[in-house]
């Protein structure tokens, strides 16, 4: 058998091997190939022709794969971490979907973010996929998968009873953060009345309730974080929902009593009164939904605590 073909094959394998073990492995593979070729030549009673030599090398395997089997790391993310990686990736992509959904909604309402450099949804999804995969590949390599996948049975959420889906919680969390950013002035909306020669502003009553609303927003975000991180703490989540709903209803009850909710400047006649009425109706519905939510959670809490079957919607 000509050494040229073997030399070229072994060089291709060697290029993919770590330098410190390359010579040793290549020497061993050379002996294996030569022994195999000699055994075939002995059987045939003549030297191997080119096609037979090529066939021998093809049977030996693709150089990249042959060298790859010597690598200590044979997979990027192993079977122990794979389900955790997949769950983390799905959760990250859901967050991206909700964030961009919210941004599209804000865009339709004429809003804009005051920060530049927001990626396109596709770039964000690709970036997130890469980042999550890199983190898990590093955990696979340097971390302890058994420790990462450790869990506590007592943290499992109850099997029965009506609970909010994780999608609902994430959506409310994202909208809660965007609302807070807008409320404290980090997210700006274009003036919608400008198209009609009007200028819309919140009435002074909102300033009086500014910090109450910041507080409510933080409680809402916190309760959603608790609901996401500790799905087993059903009672705590229900209590938080009741308290924040009552807090929200109380704040809006205070606001709605003001004579003006919006300040509309411009040459229109009935428009300011109509806009103010619309806002008042909107707040009224919001107060009712807060009260209804608190009552529903209270009702469920009562049934759960008395051990009766939880009510279902």
């Amino acid at each position, binding site marked *: 058998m000509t050494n040229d073909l073997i030399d070229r094959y072994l060089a291709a394998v060697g290029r993919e091997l770590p330098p410190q073990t390359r010579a*040793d*492995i290549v020497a061993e593979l050379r002996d294996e190939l030569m022994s195999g070729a000699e055994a075939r030549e002995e059987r045939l009673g003549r030297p191997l022709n080119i096609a037979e030599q090529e066939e021998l090398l093809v049977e030996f395997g693709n150089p990249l794969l*042959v060298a790859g089997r010597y690598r200590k790391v044979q997979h990027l993310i192993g079977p122990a971490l794979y389900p955790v990686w997949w769950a983390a990736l799905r959760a990250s992509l859901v967050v991206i979907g909700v964030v961009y959904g919210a941004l599209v909604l804000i865009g339709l309402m004429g809003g804009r973010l005051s920060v530049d450099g927001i990626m396109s949804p596709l770039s964000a999804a690709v970036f997130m996929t890469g980042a999550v995969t890199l983190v898990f590949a590093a955990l696979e390599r340097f971390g302890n998968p058994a420790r990462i996948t450790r869990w506590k049975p007592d943290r499992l959420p109850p099997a029965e009873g009506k609970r909010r889906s994780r999608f609902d919680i994430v959506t409310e969390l994202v909208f809660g953060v965007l609302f807070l950013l807008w409320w404290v002035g980090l997210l700006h909306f274009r003036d919608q009345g400008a198209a009609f020669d009007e200028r819309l502003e919140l009435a002074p009553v909102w300033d009086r309730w500014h910090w109450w609303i910041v507080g409510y927003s933080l409680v809402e975000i916190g309760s959603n974080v608790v609901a996401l991180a500790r799905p087993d703490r059903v009672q705590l989540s229900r209590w938080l929902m009741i308290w924040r709903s009552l807090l929200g209803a109380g704040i809006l009850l205070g606001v709605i009593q003001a004579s003006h909710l919006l300040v509309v400047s411009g040459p229109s006649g009935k428009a300011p009164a109509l806009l103010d009425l619309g806002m008042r109706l909107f707040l009224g519905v919001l107060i009712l939904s807060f009260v209804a939510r608190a009552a529903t959670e209270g009702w469920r809490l009562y049934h759960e605590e008395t051990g009766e079957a939880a009510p279902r919607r």
Partner: protein
Amino acid sequence: MPTEADIFETLRLELRRGSLILAVLGQLRAEHYGYTLRKALADAGVEIDEGALYPMLRRLEDQGLLCSEWRVEERRNKRFYRLSPEGEAVLARLVEEWTRLNASVGAILKGTP
């Protein structure tokens, strides 16, 4: 959609994977270099391709179960492997485990209609 033959082949490979190490360790109670080891295994009915054998030998040596040395034989430099003392102890335990498992699985299979 995998065919029945594909499914069987995947399961067969899974079944063989663990037992190949046992066969290699068992065969290396006597000294061999790669090519003769593969031939001895094949003669005993255990086929293993080179791509799987050599990385396995290296891994077992890194784990301290095998010792190796380069020697010239038949005008060529060859790497000879044999079981190390640690390898012998591990093999004895693996054989015990294998025998127990074999008996258990055998009993289960015998009980099936």
